[in-house]
């Protein structure tokens, strides 16, 4: 049976240092729940950088392509009209009229689809139940989840965690 240890910290500098030390001591840090973003914690945990910005760029390109297709189809192909003598026979020559719409749709796609991707990847949506194990982790407590496999000496890790400044340590069976 594997065990999970919940170690609580009350300072961001301490939890960052604790994660570094726990990882170098070959403990498996599964997760840290934080009340606010702690810079450097993702690197300390060995997480890869997020690729959301790249997706946003791609969505933006899709938005631009959609705007070009839409203005061309509606104004040039499907029903060309003479509006104030503006060239209705060539998308390229009529293009200055479409710049605003092209820009806005680029931003619209890049912004909204990136946020939707973020919500889906992080699995957050309305009516989703919160998964932080303790309500204090949205206030001022940082919770480090350490996974123990097999017959680990819980005494030893408890001592180690309190030496890094953990104010509360809970051992749970999984």
């Amino acid at each position, binding site marked *: 049976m594997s065990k999970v240890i919940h170690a609580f910290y*009350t*300072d961001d*500098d*301490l939890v*960052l*240092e604790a994660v570094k030390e726990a990882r170098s001591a070959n403990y498996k840090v599964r997760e840290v*729940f934080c*009340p*606010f*973003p*702690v*810079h450097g*914690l*993702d690197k300390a*945990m060995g*997480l890869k*950088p*997020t690729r*959301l*910005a790249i997706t946003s760029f791609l969505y933006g390109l899709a938005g631009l392509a959609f705007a070009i297709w*839409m*203005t061309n189809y*509606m*104004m040039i192909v*499907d*029903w060309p*009209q003479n*509006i*104030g003598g503006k060239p209705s026979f060539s998308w390229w020559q009529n293009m200055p*009229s*479409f710049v*605003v*719409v092209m820009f*806005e*749709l680029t*931003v*619209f796609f*890049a*912004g*909204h689809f*990136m*946020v939707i991707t*973020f919500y889906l990847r*992080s*699995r*957050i*949506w*309305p*009516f989703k*139940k*919160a998964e*932080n194990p303790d*309500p204090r*982790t*949205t*206030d*001022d407590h940082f919770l480090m989840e350490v996974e123990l496999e097999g017959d680990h000496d819980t005494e030893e890790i408890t001592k180690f965690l309190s*030496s890094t*400044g953990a*104010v509360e340590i809970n051992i749970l069976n999984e």
Partner: protein
Amino acid sequence: MSLHHYEAPIREPLVLGEKSYHDVTEDIVAPILGKANKSWWAIFTIALIAFVWGLGCIVYLISTGIGTWGLNKTIGWAWDITNFVWWVGIGHAGTLISAVLLLFRQKWRMGVNRSAEAMTIFAVVQAGLFPLIHMGRIWLAYWVLPIPNQFGSLWINFNSPLLWDVFAIATYLSISLVFWYTGLLPDFAMVRDRTKNEFQRKIYGILSFGWSGRVKDWQRWEEVHLVLAGLATPLVLSVHTTVSFDFATSVVPGWHSNIYPPYFVAGAVFSGFAMVQTLLIVMRKVLHMEEYITMLHIEYMNKVILVVGGIVSVAYATEYFIAWYSGSEYENYTYLSFGAATGPYWWAFWSLIICNSIAPLFFFIKKVRRNIFITYIIALLINIGMWFERFNIIVVNLSHDRLPSGWAMFSPTFVDIGVFIGTIGFFSVLFLLYARTFPVIPQAEIKSILKSSGEYYKARRAVEGDGAMVLNPGTELPEKYKVGQNVSDKTEVKAIEEILNRIGAYNPEVDTPDDLQKITGLGSIIEKDLNKLGIHTYDQVSKLEEQDYLVIEALIPAFSAETAKTENWAGQALNLKNNKL
């Protein structure tokens, strides 16, 4: 080993008082968990009455037709479009604060961005009402969307600036909303976990989307914020640019103007910041947020008002000059011209100049920038002045047509006034509800700058040195991180004891400490750390040997044995000691 960027102590703190992370939580959740007081109910009732009155006017307007407005043959646009541009302009400060200031890494935005963004969204909602009403047949509003109709199929006209507006404002409103909401998720989660009321917990649980605060979530959350800020910055500039195209692409004298796009954007920022001041000066007082929205925040915003007010004034001067320089008699009736200043709309002209160009000049005086009462008065004047700017552009320019027989004045009917008052009421209702139910300060972000910009932490660092590890009050520093003990096997600790035995311990009752910073290459940080090890005098330093430097290097991160050796600190200390004697 502190991970917080050192901020110069000369900079004023952004969060006042001795605050722990928990104190921040308590301060920000208090208005949500508490009950509204009488003054809130009084203002809310007035706002609600204004809103209902406006709603009645809108219903009458739509059921009767826009003939109920005071428009005439000469003046076909008046209060409706004035109000539309005025509200859109106000809706510019929020995104400017949250996006542009985020890109420039201005930490002071965190005190005000949540409310400024809320104001933006509520203001753009008001703005959107006017074009909808002006359509006359509001139930056909979907005709502005690019969807096929029954005429098989006549599309919307992408050559029209009015349609560009539809796209610009829809994008702006929706992106601002998403930006604001994503920032709110962790704060809703905070309220969800604090409240003891079961119903409240359920509501905030749904609103928070089950936010749990995992490291990966935070990493993505920060990236999303940064990218949205990068997207929203050109977006906010594009919105008022597009609004200005409504006028600039026409041939009406006074509207057909090249400088409209940048001038409109500056004007929008100007009015937006004035409205932020108007709202936040009251809100910080009522909700007791003075420690988060400080005088420094107010002064910074006043400086922005001063700069954009200057840009707007330069634009006025340019318009006035060009109208005169063109030599065209039609241009002498445009809204910034001698004809306008002395004509029948002289009062509108001078209201504009006094409120927008003269009133903000007082912000050149620091005492005025930091005076809440005067700031409030000037902000109100700017709100009024920016309304007149739009009124002048629309009504004054139209009032003097090319043929004198067509000249006319505009007088609003009760419907014009009622709809405008109604939108102010609607806006106030939304903002008042927001102030009672939303975390008005982005608490997660405030906590992340607390250590670098909080008054308490700045004071602690001034005493303990910039490299000192300053913890959240109430948290004890574990033994092994204390200076002189950050090496786990403690051999160095033993070594330093041996060194002190040899060079002599410092006794505060007998000895006086020396200014170790006189030694070349030894700065204030190392001095403080050396003091913590028990080294205070030239005499002690002069007895240090090369292997001692290595021991100290292991204990003090800033200390370099190499520098100490090449600069010969022991020798320098010996000289200083002898000179002292």
